């Protein structure tokens, strides 16, 4: 049916800042959310596999790496949630009428996501405090922790799946009425959507790749203290990233051709921003593939760092690509550019100042904490030598 009669109106209030700025904040905010979110999802998957592999051998590299990932998870989840606030804010502001409607159509799964999140979150604490750091379970603690972690990973993957459902459902107003008519209580998902599975797979795999990067980053951290462990971490992490990236090329194309044909055309030269961001992503993925393959074979720090930085850039350009997909899909029915703009200069400036302050504060805080965990005696080599 023609959805134009049921497209909800924006509220008759102006936007608080120019559209380009709000859209930039949406994209940048999502980027800042995706990094910890991917570390969480990918980290939980890899951690569970590593812990199970390590089993009861607590000195094995696999166990240590799995434990390291597991201990980082609570903080990652916490940041994934807080960083999620920004894109959620600007998504509601710019595409609220689409987002609210699709959320209502799938209300029950959408709100159950919160319960799932709470359980997974406490699950990670359970693993770090009760299982990994207690001595009673000297035996198969790796297996047990890994098994619980697997459940957590499944839960987190489920949350991602629900997001994929809603983020695709909001793009297709033509489906809303039929779904809503068949249940007004919000008992739906968007399983009939052609792009759903490739899209979800694309995102989930990228999370595993970021998990691999996190492992490699641990390797960098250990490179001065335990050369062998460090190399193992970098090689393992790089192998994961390289393997996933190769797979992503296939999944990515499947995703691209599962899109509505107009969107596919736009990405293949029909529209400049989307085409450029996609092209850059593909080219950089090749760089990632080469760099991480080298790092996987040689264990080279430099190659790994190159791969890591390129991946981060690819994630950003892919997010731009994803944003453009939303723009193409919603363009016909939702025009945030039709809203008047009345810039709230005072609070806009206050926000920018606060944001700058936050960056400064976090830098300072990281330094302080880093200093606390790496007291000068250890990193300050000459002094250590004289005392020996």
């Amino acid at each position, binding site marked *: 049916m023609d959805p134009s*009669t*049921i497209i*909800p*109106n*924006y*509220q008759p*209030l*102006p*936007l*608080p*800042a120019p559209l380009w700025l709000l859209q930039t*904040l949406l994209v940048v905010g999502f980027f800042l959310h995706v990094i910890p979110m991917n570390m969480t999802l990918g980290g939980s998957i890899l951690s569970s596999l590593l812990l199970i592999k390590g089993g009861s051998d607590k000195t094995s590299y696999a166990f240590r790496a799995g434990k390291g990932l597991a201990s980082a998870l*609570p*903080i990652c989840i*916490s940041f994934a*949630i*807080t*960083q*999620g*606030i*920004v894109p*959620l*804010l*600007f998504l*509601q*502001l710019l595409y*609220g*009428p689409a*987002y*609210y*409607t699709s*959320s*209502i*159509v799938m*209300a029950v799964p*959408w*709100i159950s*996501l*919160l319960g799932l999140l709470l359980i997974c*979150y406490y699950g990670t*604490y359970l693993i770090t405090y009760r299982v990994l750091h207690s001595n009673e379970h000297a035996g198969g603690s790796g297996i047990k922790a890994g098994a619980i972690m697997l459940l957590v990973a499944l839960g987190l993957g489920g949350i991602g799946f629900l997001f994929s459902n809603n983020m695709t459902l909001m793009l297709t107003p033509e489906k809303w009425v039929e779904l*809503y*008519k*068949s249940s*007004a*209580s*919000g008992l739906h998902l968007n399983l009939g959507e052609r792009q759903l599975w490739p899209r979800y797979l694309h995102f989930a795999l990228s999370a595993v790749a970021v998990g691999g990067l996190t492992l490699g980053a641990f390797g960098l951290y250990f490179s001065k203290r335990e050369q062998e462990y460090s190399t193992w971490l970098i090689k393992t992490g790089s192998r994961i990233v390289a393997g996933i990236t190769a797979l992503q090329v296939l999944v990515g194309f499947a995703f691209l051709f599962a899109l509505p044909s107009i969107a596919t055309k736009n990405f293949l030269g029909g529209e400049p921003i989307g085409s450029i961001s996609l092209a850059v992503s593909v080219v950089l993925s090749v760089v990632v593939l080469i760099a991480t393959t080298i790092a996987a074979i040689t264990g080279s720090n430099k190659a790994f760092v190159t791969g890591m930085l390129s991946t981060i850039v690819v994630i950003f350009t892919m997010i731009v690509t994803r944003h453009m997909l939303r723009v193409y899909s919603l363009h016909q029915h939702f025009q945030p550019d039709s809203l008047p703009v*009345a810039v*709230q200069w005072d*609070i806009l400036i*206050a*926000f920018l100042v*606060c944001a700058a302050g*936050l960056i400064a*504060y*976090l830098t300072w*805080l990281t330094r*302080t*904490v880093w200093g*606390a965990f790496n007291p000068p005696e250890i990193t300050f080599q000459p002094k250590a030598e004289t005392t020996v």
Partner: protein
Amino acid sequence: MNYPIWVVPIFGGGWIIGIIAIVHVFLSHFAVGGGAFLALTEELAYRRKDENLYAYLRQHSRFFMLLTSVAGAVTGVGIWWAISLVNPDGTAVLIQNFTLGWAVEYVFFVAELATVFAYYYTWDKLTKEQHLNLARMYFGFSVMTLVVINGILTFMLTPGHWLESRYWLEGFFNATYWPSLVLRLLIMFALAGMYAMVTSSQIKDQKTREYVVRFCAKWLLPIFFIGPVAGYFYLANVPQAAIETVFNGVHASGVGNFSVLARALYLSLILSGTVIVFAYIGPYLNPRGLTVRISILFLICGLTVTGITEWMRELLRKPYVVYGYMYCNGIRKESVDKLNEGGFLAQSKWSTITALPHGQNDIELGRNIFRYQCMSCHTENGYRGMKKLLGERDRDAIEGFLKTIKSRNKENNPYLGIMPPLVGNDDDLQKLASYLCTINGHSETSPAVSSKTRASSQF
């Protein structure tokens, strides 16, 4: 009308918001008050060089971190989930107005979380001064999140000059901003004291336990002395029409029991008075006697009072979501005239289309009007159910009632303080009546007359 309605059987969508919001209020108030508690207690431990006190803080801080960073953050996001599902239009108003305000809050929230993690993980790793500073900073950031969100929350009840100027700052620093800020801070301190009683009642070393328990009891004092004053200023600035409904109920009608609000107010006053008196003669005068169980009892009382207070605040705002601007069913006050003239159904996006599967008959269309205009507060059979409220009214009585609540004149419509006026033309009213008759079983007495024949018989 603008959005589809999420139909939540029995409870109604309001409760979904309510449950998440109340849990979140407990936890977030604890996050701020608890921050003050950590900072001050650590200051004390530092000055007295009291290792026992440090040991206690270390314990308490894990409990604190787990509760606030996990459940606090998730329920905070949860409120957004809930309000956007239940009241998308109202949410959109807040978002379009205050996105940047929320963005500022987010900055402080990130700083707060980063600090709580840093604080928790650096016990014994930093110097005592550095660690104490982290506690102070945590408190500062968490207060800032309150300073921001308080403006948005109070805006909903007293938007003040924003109604004319549409200038966000006038909505933000509104008439109830300062009293509400003070009240919330006091509640936060009191809750922090009560939470800390639970953890401190388990301290092994008896001397430290007595000392800390007594210290906790003192956290209830500020609200005892300043609370009533702040409360008075708060109520004095709330729209007086809202206050009237609180204390008088709707006398002219059968809903005298709306003064349940007044009763809730008394209950919460009595309960908080009791808590404070008992805190004085219990933990303060006799800290040795405080067991874990008693401390949990205190906490439950405190949470009950907080819950009731929040609930009252929400009721005060009824029937609006933004007072004087948008009703809680998402209809803007200024659009009522237009909807009355042209008809509600005729000008709604979702309400007619969704009636289609059962055929567009009067009852189905009436059901949709009910969903859009009444279901933000009522359900069919469950919470505040229509079946019970309609009672024995027959079709004429129902029509009469609907005409009453359609009026926007206080003299004719005693319900104006609690229900938004019914919006729409006569045709809409007939359809709604047809539907309501099916709920309490009075549809047989007056077979659903097609609205067309009715309308034509009027001309």
